[in-house]
């Protein structure tokens, strides 16, 4: 019989991130389907708020590793916390939210515990008592379903797969584990956080809309000239009014290193596609994009898709977007901004 451990860390405000609450829902469902209970393991500076968030989840036990030294995202201390929790729970399947903190440390923990790990899990099911997961290969080009024999099996679950757990019901007591750090564990010090060099915060993982800007925004327009400043104003105006998240094709973010006109607020962090991210949003609007990257890889997890493009035969938009508007994005988005203002 499997022993399921749900593992999560708190944020700086002491709460669990949304993806952690989604993974908690997964832990409850999977445990039920495996006819077993599950254990909660939490890591962070102060776990009180998180304790309240996981109330009524159906977990049989709860363990925690807390303290100032575990408040920061750091491999050397996080791996000790994870190791202690997995060993204490005697876990065979560990469900983990896909956060940057756990993405860094869990692979090492899997090695330390002689287990296996799969990331970007986009589906989990139990078939005939056997746990199977779904994940993508070759940057969202091939999808696979498989199971593993080796335990412990760490599963980093992507956001947007399961509904968010809303804590209600009775709480269970938490047993705090003592984890000692050696001096070498303090060789890394977290100094703080910084926004990217772009002037505006344009990446909003929780946004309902992803706006994808392609290289066409900085190409010569009908008058034979480029209009990067005008493009900046239109895009930033749209993002401000809709609170959309901004994605970009690789060719656009690469232009800064190639000496071409650039959009000042755009950085590699905005890039979607093969060497960028594959974000999850309910809707996506692509503008001036003509490649495979934004339409296939970058849009894989966008539910409703629309594109504004001057080429009606764009092979990458055809069959990938729900609606293709054949029009000048400068004109369309200027008008969209006017309508959003009114």
């Amino acid at each position, binding site marked *: 019989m499997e022993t399921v451990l749900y593992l999560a860390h708190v944020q700086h405000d002491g709460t669990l991130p949304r993806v952690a609450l989604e993974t908690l829902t997964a832990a409850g469902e999977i445990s039920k389907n495996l006819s077993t209970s599950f254990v909660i393991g939490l890591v962070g500076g102060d776990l009180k708020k998180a304790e309240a968030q996981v109330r009524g989840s159906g977990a049989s036990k709860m363990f925690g590793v807390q303290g100032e030294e575990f408040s920061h995202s750091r491999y*050397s201390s996080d791996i000790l916390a994870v190791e202690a929790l997995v060993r204490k729970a005697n876990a065979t399947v560990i469900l983990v939210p896909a956060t940057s903190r756990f993405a860094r*440390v869990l692979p*090492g923990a899997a090695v330390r515990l002689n287990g296996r790990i799969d990331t*970007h899990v986009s589906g989990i099911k139990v078939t005939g008592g056997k746990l199977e997961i779904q994940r993508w290969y070759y940057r969202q080009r091939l999808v696979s379903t498989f199971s593993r024999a080796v335990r412990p099996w760490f599963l980093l679950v992507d956001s947007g797969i399961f509904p968010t757990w809303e804590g209600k019901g009775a709480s269970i007591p938490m047993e705090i584990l003592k984890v000692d750090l050696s001096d070498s564990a303090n060789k890394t010090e977290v100094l703080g956080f910084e*926004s990217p060099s772009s002037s505006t915060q344009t990446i*909003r993982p929780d946004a309902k809309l992803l706006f994808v800007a392609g290289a066409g925004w900085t190409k010569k327009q009908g008058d034979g000239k480029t209009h990067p400043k005008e493009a900046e104003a239109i895009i930033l105006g749209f993002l401000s009014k809709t609170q959309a998240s901004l994605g970009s094709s690789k060719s656009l973010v690469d232009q800064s290193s190639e000496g071409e006109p650039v959009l000042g607020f755009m950085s590699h962090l905005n890039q979607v596609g*093969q060497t960028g991210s594959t974000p999850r949003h309910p809707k996506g609007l692509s503008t001036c994009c003509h490649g495979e990257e934004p339409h296939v890889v970058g849009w894989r997890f966008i539910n409703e*898709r*629309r594109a504004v493009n001057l080429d009606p035969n764009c092979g990458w938009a055809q069959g990938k977007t729900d609606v293709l508007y*054949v029009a000048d994005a400068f004109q369309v988005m200027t008008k969209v901004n006017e309508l959003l203002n009114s």
Partner: protein
Amino acid sequence: MSSGFHIVVCGSLVPDPLQTLEPIQGPQGPALKNEAMLPVILDPWAGHALYEAAHLAKNNSGSKVWLVSLGPKAKLQQLMMTIAQKAPFELVVLDGPASGFVDAFEVAQALASAIEKIPGLDKTKLLLFGGCASASRDAGVTVQMVGERLGISNQFLAVDKLEVQGDGSLKILERIEGGQYQISRCAGAPAVFAWATGNLPEPPNNPQVGMMNMRTIMPALQKAQPVQISTNDISFSNVEVPKQLRKTRVVKDVPVDQIAREIVEWIKG
């Protein structure tokens, strides 16, 4: 203070992203149709790691860069024809599969074992570099696993910037949620850096660097040891190309005002 680093970059080949991929069932598990014939490139994130390594080595005297690659020897030889001109490095070859379907755990085991055997490598100076994920498996776990096997507990994922400070410590910017960076300070080597895109453009080809590299690349390819990587632990139920062809409604010869209204209604809906 320049201490000189021993920088080991883990990176291999992936199919050119413009190729259409079709899965088949091979004797060792899932594979790609005509995999041996597909044009390949250096994995994009591993490429960033390699260029950052070369840049760091250039600016810190006494440093040296190794590129440790696991892949079919013949394909690696083709790849080196282009990569060798980009940056100076010494190649270490493991002749084995570069498929996305092989298990990262076993790949990490093979890479760590090869790194341990590099002659003259000083682990106290070791900076282990690699991509934060690959364009094949896209797991984002291999570099951390190699680091753990080498006993390195200072690890950084999705790194965009690494600066050597005056006191020899390292300042690191890692990508985290919401388009933010986490800034950390590490006392020094050994450490692991799984790179995101970094800040450097792809270097231009330099034939002199290529000729210098080729002196060690060809012997490294000739003496490459075969490595067995299995997927025995994994039972694949299916691997398929997603069938998600949408019925695209093409809207053309329509006034801009009308298109804009439709988009706004859709956004608000």
